[in-house]
């Protein structure tokens, strides 16, 4: 099934032939890239739900889409994914309508029944002091079957698989905040194994609701500098105080390089390398020695067959939490030495799109290659003296970009890095 072009490890080369993205900056690559390179922020005050009593009242939610009732994380995540995948598949011109000739790998936020639905069932089941017995009684009436289809873990991928006609068994996955990168990694591996000529890899997250925000807030992970909203995400700055939740989706069509060339497809870039390493130190903090972060970056470079000095820019995980940015800078210095390539964090403008981040930022990394421009890290006004690396601060930088590494790190010791190049390595 795979073609004859091989990478340095003798494996089929994986091309990118389609990309799609939705964030709080807009729908589609054009709007996102224009805003991103203009240093525009998509972070704003939350209007989706009241924020009285909350420490954080801002987010990069996507509020412009028409979402089918009931409004809930699975329905929004699905719509975000559908739009991003639609853009990517259209650009690739691969397959017919609802006939994508490849597998589906989807990073989706973990699903659970939400409060309006829980309350509807509880009130249908009882009227005294309510417990789960009442919720179950309500569910047993059989009137809430639609909720069942909505709140299954595999439901969003199921709908995307139907809409795009992907092949085989769609995979829904979570590696926390590196999920989007893992979805891409799974696609790369499947193509390299010759299992499929193409893969649709998506990361999506539309899960900013009160409880999700409160959960992160109680872990002290979020910025509380609510005024002005667009100033809150300050990756690598000394006064950074947490991340800002964001929503969005990123999608890539990955394709066996020769398969793409043979059908005359435009090659947008190459997914040259993936690296990962687990961290057994702590549930939310990374090993103080930075070994897993360093290991994941090195593994991605090795997988791509590139030396550190062959990387032109780093698309950072750069969450704007004190812990992440310190550890990430330290990891980059350990791998790249004195000359860490210019580094930037898209999260300064779109917030942390969580499950989607790795996929969204892979699209932006590839756009950097395409346009020869690195988007800025905005809000970089107070340098952190402990982070002395070349941050693309506040204004975009024009540069010939032929290779990018994009980092994604998550709770639970998840570290995943992707190397993207303009041409096969």
């Amino acid at each position: 099934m795979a073609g004859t072009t091989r990478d340095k490890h003798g494996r089929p080369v994986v091309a990118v032939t389609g990309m799609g993205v939705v964030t709080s900056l807009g729908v589609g690559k054009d709007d996102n890239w224009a805003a991103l390179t203009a240093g525009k922020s998509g972070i704003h005050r939350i209007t989706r739900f009241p924020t009285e009593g909350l420490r954080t009242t801002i987010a990069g939610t996507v509020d412009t889409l028409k979402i089918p009732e009931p409004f809930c994380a699975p329905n929004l995540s699905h719509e975000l994914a559908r739009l991003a995948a639609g853009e990517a598949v259209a650009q690739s011109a691969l397959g017919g309508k609802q006939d994508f000739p490849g597998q589906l790998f989807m990073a989706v936020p973990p699903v659970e029944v939400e409060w309006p639905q829980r309350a509807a069932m509880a009130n249908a089941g009882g009227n005294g002091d309510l417990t789960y017995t009442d919720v179950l009684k309500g569910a047993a009436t059989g009137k809430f079957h639609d909720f069942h289809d909505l709140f299954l873990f595999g439901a969003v991928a199921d709908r995307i698989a139907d809409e795009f006609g992907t092949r085989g068994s769609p995979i829904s996955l979570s590696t926390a905040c590196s999920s989007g990168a893992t979805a891409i990694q799974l696609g790369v591996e499947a193509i390299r194994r010759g299992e499929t000529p193409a893969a649709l890899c998506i990361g999506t997250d539309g899960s900013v609701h009160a409880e999700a925000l409160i959960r992160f807030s109680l872990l002290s992970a979020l910025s509380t500098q609510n005024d002005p909203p667009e100033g809150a995400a300050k990756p690598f700055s000394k006064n950074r105080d947490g991340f800002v939740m964001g929503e969005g989706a990123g999608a890539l069509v990955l394709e066996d390089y020769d398969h793409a060339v043979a059908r005359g497809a435009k090659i947008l870039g190459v997914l040259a390398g993936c690296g990962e390493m687990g961290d057994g130190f702590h549930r939310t903090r990374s090993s103080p020695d930075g070994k897993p972060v360093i290991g994941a970056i090195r593994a991605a470079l090795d997988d791509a067959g590139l030396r550190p000095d062959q990387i032109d820019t780093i698309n950072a995980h750069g969450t704007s939490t004190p812990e992440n940015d310190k550890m990430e800078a330290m990891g980059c210095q350990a791998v790249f030495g004195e000359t860490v390539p210019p580094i930037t964090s898209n999260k300064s403008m779109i917030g942390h799109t969580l499950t989607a981040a790795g996929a969204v930022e892979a699209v932006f990394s590839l756009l950097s290659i395409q346009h020869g421009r690195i988007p800025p890290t905005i809000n970089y006004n107070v340098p952190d003296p402990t982070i002395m690396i070349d941050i693309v601060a506040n204004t975009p930088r024009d540069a010939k970009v032929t290779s990018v590494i994009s980092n994604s790190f998550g709770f639970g010791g998840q570290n995943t890095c992707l190397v993207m190049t303009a041409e096969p390595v």
Partner: protein
Amino acid sequence: MSSRDVIITGIGIVTSLGEGIEPHVQALSSFTPNVDCEKFAPYAVHPAVAVELDRHIPKKSDQRQMEPWQRYGTYAAGAALEDAGIKGNAELLAKMHLIVACGGGERDYAVDGQILTGLRDAAEPDVYLNERLMSDIRPTLFLAQLSNLLAGNISIVHGVIGGSRTFMGEEQAGVDAVRIAEARIRSGQNDLFLVGGATNAERADLLLTYEMGGAVWRDPSVPVLKRGGGGFVPGSASVFLVLEAREHAQARGARMIAKLGPVAAERSRRKEGDVTRILGDLMMAAGPVPTVVSGNTGFSSASTEEAEAIARSAPDAKVILSGDMIGHSIEAQFAFGVALAAGGIHAGATAGPALVTGVGYHRGEGLVKVEAA
């Protein structure tokens, strides 16, 4: 591309029937189902047996950070590592990859109940919800709920740090977890995997998900195939397998329990006859076998179609229904079937090769062949 044999070299299991592979192999000849009909009446569940957590999760501080599904899963993972002779071997654990199939974690029922009661009469329900959630939720509860934190806990407690991935999506997540691990070993990408899943059935919120879909069967005395597609009795199960390239297992002198074939995974649209056709085709391609371990859920036409496909494609085979033994453990059921087939063949209690089915109650069709190593 290379094509290598994939060998099962370790099994860790906790279900309602017991701990370890032995009680489950014994159950192949006879067993008494372990069912709790009281705790969640009118629902029945197969509860996991009690285990000595300290054996595989030595630190109480780690145990406290987890909800039951994570504790049992982490425990079973440790048991699998021990069974494979890898536990504590930092060099092997550092290159070992991990794939976990699971749902999410448990909610705080007391908090939810109080909020639901208060919400009903709250003047401003959303504001009330904010206040209560901010003050009532335990900050670390989130870490016990995140799907990928079972994998995270396995990394922390056991030092499996090659890299972990968590698959969600009910039964098919379990099929795909084994499939991807198997494919990565077979293709030469990696040598060593820990793969499996954990489900705690003693959860009102788990019952809720499946009761919304009318999939929960309340009378455990009725066998899976006699329910007319009426549903499943949820069962707790935590199952982990150590999978390894044959060369790798040989080089370290590991005991080989069984050989795992390529895992097939499909997703039909579930039109009438789809399951019979797809499973039948996969079984025909796998060739005749004396044993089938069926994960038949007991729910919907998929249940009757699965039984029909097995009767047609393997009319002479002994069919073992894992759902009658341990109930239905969703994400963990396929790994349980593989473990049962492997353990049975290794012990000489089951005629090999065996086909293991994984047909989801709602979606997904999977099959794998397990045979003597």
